[in-house]
């Protein structure tokens, strides 16, 4: 019974913390965006706009809640709930602090010791696309429907490289349990972080995570210019807020996963190691983890204003022609290394080599295409790009 109460308390604290964090992350993102664009950002509500999230929340609550006349009401209402619920559900197995040697109330995870932690996260987050696709379909709006179709195609496509890039880590650690993944990295120290042996997987994972979370540069499902907002065009007030919260929670989850899988979780040399036994070490570890996650989130925000949005065919090309083969190759490399018991450091040059190989293939393919086009048009006696090229 005590277990149940602590679990419920942890759920309440975690969900509350996440939602508050999301609110303030939105403020941070708005501020950061403003700074990058030489603007000031929200600064009207409270000093430096710190109460802006409260004002936004209030606005969402008291705004008129519109349901389009011929929308499918049940689905229309269910969609945002599914969207937020699934992303929150994924948090159940994410250890946001040290796990093992803590009392129950300090274990920093809702559902500890789930062997299939990563798979669970993928399973649950893959359900998030239901919120998107149902929202788009139930709105009875062709732009929304297009947005949701795009979103689902994108999410399905990027789930594959996302999962396969994680498999390398799972194979190296021999576990899918996130706590064990962290523990394995922490035991080996700084150079045991999987980023060193799996840089390619980390890159693929991060890219796919951005796409999974519908973040720029992959937010094709909601691009304002083409789809007037995408699947949430018809959503207003709290329902829109739920979608938004879901999206941001997804970002947080993915940041946590990036840190846990590739950047050693709560581990940091000299400060937070498995051996550090000073008073409040658990707090330091939590802070280390959170600051790592925070850095990743800030990086995602920076990426948002750095890279322009992909075109849909580019997006699909990137996934199917680059990320999936690369992650497959990476997985095979890990399997080979494990099978023959080679030194794991071989994986670093292999990763770099794979990356270069794909780069070279890309360049030469592009050049060949251009050369071919030139040859064809000159052969036809036309202007370059004039005839067959266009």
């Amino acid at each position, binding site marked *: 019974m005590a277990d149940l109460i602590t679990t419920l308390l942890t759920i309440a604290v975690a969900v509350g913390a996440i939602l508050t964090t999301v609110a303030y992350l939105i403020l941070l993102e708005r501020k950061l965006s403003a*700074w990058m664009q*030489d603007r*000031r950002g929200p600064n009207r509500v409270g000093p430096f706009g710190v109460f802006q999230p409260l004002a936004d929340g209030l606005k969402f609550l008291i705004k008129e809640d519109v349901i389009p006349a011929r929308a499918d009401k049940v689905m229309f209402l269910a969609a945002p709930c599914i969207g937020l619920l699934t992303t929150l559900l994924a948090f159940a197995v994410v250890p946001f602090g040290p796990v093992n040697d803590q009392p129950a109330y300090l274990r920093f995870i809702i559902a500890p010791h789930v062997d299939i932690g990563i798979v669970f996260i993928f399973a649950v987050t893959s359900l998030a696309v239901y919120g998107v696709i149902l929202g788009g379909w139930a709105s009875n709006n062709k732009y929304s429907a297009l947005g949701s179709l795009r979103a689902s195609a994108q999410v399905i496509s990027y789930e594959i490289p996302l999962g396969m890039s994680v498999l390398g880590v799972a194979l190296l650690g021999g576990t899918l349990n996130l706590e064990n993944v962290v523990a394995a990295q922490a035991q080996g120290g700084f150079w045991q972080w999987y980023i060193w042996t799996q840089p390619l997987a980390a890159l693929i994972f991060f890219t796919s995570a951005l796409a999974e979370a519908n973040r720029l540069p992959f937010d094709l499902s909601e691009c304002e210019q083409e789809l007037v907002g995408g699947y949430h065009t018809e959503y207003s007030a709290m329902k829109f807020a739920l979608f938004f919260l879901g999206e941001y929670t997804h970002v947080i989850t993915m940041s946590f996963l990036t840190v846990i899988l590739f950047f050693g979780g709560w581990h940091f040399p000299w400060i937070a190691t498995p051996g550090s036994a000073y008073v409040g070490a658990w707090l330091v570890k939590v802070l280390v983890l959170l600051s790592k996650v925070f850095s990743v989130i800030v990086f995602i925000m920076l990426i948002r204003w750095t890279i322009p949005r992909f075109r849909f065919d580019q997006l699909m090309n990137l996934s199917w022609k680059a990320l999936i083969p690369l992650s497959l190759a990476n997985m095979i490399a890990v399997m080979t290394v494990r099978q023959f018991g080679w030194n794991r450091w071989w994986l670093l040059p292999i990763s770099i080599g794979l*990356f270069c190989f794909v780069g070279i293939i890309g*360049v030469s393919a592009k050049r060949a295409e251009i050369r071919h086009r030139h040859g064809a048009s000159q052969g036809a006696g036309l202007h370059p790009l004039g005839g067959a090229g266009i």
Partner: protein
Amino acid sequence: MTAAADNQDVIWVEEPEIGFWEATFLPAIVEGLKTTIRHVTNYQPVTQQYPEEKPILPLHYRGVHRLNRDEQGRVKCVACMLCATACPANCIDILAAAAPPQWPDRDKYPASFVLDELRCIYCGMCEEACPVDAIELTHIYDLTGTSRNELMYDREKLLDVFDQTKDDPRDPTRTRRGRLGPAAEFGSLPTVAPATPITPGDRSAQAPAPGVIHPHKPSDWSRKPS
């Protein structure tokens, strides 16, 4: 179309051949990140805090209209309706009447002059069209109201705008008995300031003077095919 016409009218842009690093996107991403991070670390906002800081508008700004008074304080308008004719938004509605007998020098005056400020597009054509310089656009830009009717400005309201603005140095009565005053010569006068003040060293406005359109140089961004 002949090849010669091609060369003149159409600039052929070839797809650039990208190298290995470009193909990996990494340099571009790093470059972009550098730019964004530089803006965050070297933060110089250009936003104007509007209600606290009022903008200094250029002299040619066109805001709310006013109906000028002549030397005797009468409405200057003669109800010729040229402004209503010139108005592309059809926002001016004038009812003319014979001038009262105590105005011996006038034949006609506007019995009612209603200008729909919401419908107006502030193009200034009425000002251009007015043969007696009775209607002018002022610098008042913060026009708000709680109903549509409130922003249907009638003759008295427009005359009130004149009384409010005639002593404003930016809104002098631009004419003196048919002769244009100095404020009317937009062409030769320097503007008081650009619409938005520019912080010294602002990158977005550094190289050229604001508002200057540069003749573009095609050679910069494209190569003609050999």
